[in-house]
């Protein structure tokens, strides 16, 4: 063993802290970017007052959020109410541990990295259900149920789509998947998988046009109706952490991650992730929202069969072409 064990633990602690900080900073950046992008798309200017062109707006928002009163409904189940946001936010950040950010910044190359990335966010569902149930509020309850139903429905086609990548790469390690894309990124070989991955990921992280669970016109704010201040901020953080993780993982799986000419890998990965994030925002402000029944029908009757067909076709073509 080249690295001593206590050092490995310390490295884990350090990377955990780094990942959380990155996510915090990214959330601030992404919220601002999203406001500006949405403003541009909808012909507005977005936040302008705090800092030059409103650049410090989200910093001000963050300060506001940690300073806000922490209100809990009188009839809420205290333990579950506290546990909910943690169980939503922590897995979202934990899943980042296997994303290879480039040569010096591979946090951890697990043998089952791809599966780890898909499995950990599944814990989020428990958090959503707990938060909705514990609040003792009709909107929260329905919001929690809908969110979790949507999440589990899209988890299947998303995972099935990733199977094709694993099949081609011949490994479950994220680093090996990158290695296998040396010559040609998988977006060229598996364009349909890439499309399916992007759409189902958007749905799984509850973003428009798939943000039914939080449809403010119907359910107020969904499962986090009763949350305020920092606890609410954790849900918010989780949403953007999930958005970022899905984009970065998509860049690793389909776009060749950090490979590219001239610039260092981290920069290339950042550029590719940013492109995917921008597409996500673009979609959010361009398409209308789906209805709950349409969402579920899409997941089970369109995306799931499509991902199965995609898998079979990919396997057959791979076999016929021969490596």
């Amino acid at each position, binding site marked *: 063993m080249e690295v001593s064990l206590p050092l490995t633990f310390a490295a884990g602690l350090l990377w955990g802290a780094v990942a959380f900080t990155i996510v915090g900073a990214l959330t601030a950046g992404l919220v601002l970017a999203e406001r500006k992008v949405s403003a541009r798309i909808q012909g507005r200017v977005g936040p302008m007052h705090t800092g030059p062109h409103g650049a410090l707006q989200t910093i001000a928002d963050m300060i506001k959020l940690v300073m806000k009163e922490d209100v809990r409904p009188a009839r809420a*189940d205290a333990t*579950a109410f506290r546990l909910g946001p943690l169980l939503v936010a922590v897995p979202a950040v934990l899943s980042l541990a296997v994303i290879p950010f480039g040569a010096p910044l591979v946090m951890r190359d697990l043998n*089952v990295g791809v599966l780890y990335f898909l*499995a950990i966010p*599944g814990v989020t569902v*428990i958090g959503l*259900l707990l938060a909705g*149930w514990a609040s003792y509020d009709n909107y929260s309850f329905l919001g929690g149920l809908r969110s979790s139903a949507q999440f589990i429905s899209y*988890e299947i086609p998303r995972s099935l789509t990733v199977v094709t990548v694993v099949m081609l790469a011949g490994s479950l390690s994220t680093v090996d998947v990158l290695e296998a894309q040396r010559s040609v990124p998988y977006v060229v070989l598996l364009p349909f998988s890439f499309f399916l991955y992007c759409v189902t990921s958007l749905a799984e992280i509850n973003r428009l046009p798939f943000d039914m669970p939080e449809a403010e016109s119907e359910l107020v704010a969904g499962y986090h109706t009763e949350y305020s201040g920092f606890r609410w901020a954790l849900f918010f953080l989780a949403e953007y952490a999930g958005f970022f993780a899905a984009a970065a993982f998509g860049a690793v799986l389909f776009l060749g991650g950090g490979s590219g000419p001239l610039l260092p890998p981290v920069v290339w990965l950042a550029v590719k992730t940013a492109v995917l994030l921008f597409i996500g925002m673009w979609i959010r402000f361009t398409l209308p929202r789906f209805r709950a029944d349409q969402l579920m029908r899409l997941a089970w009757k369109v995306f799931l069969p499509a991902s199965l067909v995609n898998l079979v076709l990919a396997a057959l073509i791979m076999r016929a072409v021969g490596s």
Partner: protein
Amino acid sequence: MSEPQNVEQLLFIAFGIVAAGGALYAVVTRSLLRSIIALGAFLTAVAGEFYLLAADFLAVVQIFVYVGGIVVLMLFALMLSASGVRHPLAAIDRPALGAALAYSLGAGVLWGSLTTELPAVGELPADAVDALGRALLGSQLWSFELIGVILLASVITALVIVRKERR
């Protein structure tokens, strides 16, 4: 102190304590919600044990299926069956008798497994995930296809049970 074997042993015991604690809380608490949350903690600790036992694929499957699946299913069932009840509670019957029986059964199992002569830990395959896949498509093919059949059967059964009662 940082001898790998000792650290491994220590971690295994630590996870074991969390697992046993979670399991114990899950069976003795009266609150059904807490029981299920404790089950989640127990299952996560067991996933850690799997990883230490060189079964990393199994550990991830444990998180995926048990924590992200079965626990969620139980929460759904709890919430479906708790109309009008703020904190669903469940009674515990004759704990002394149950404890005595469980203790003697557990002690019997423990005695049995500790007195059995077990072979030493063998050489593990270099690429465990690969080996698992080969086993599933090779010597263990029947179990691979069998799970598929069982899963199909359980979809049919469960949907029939759920549908029958609908009026």
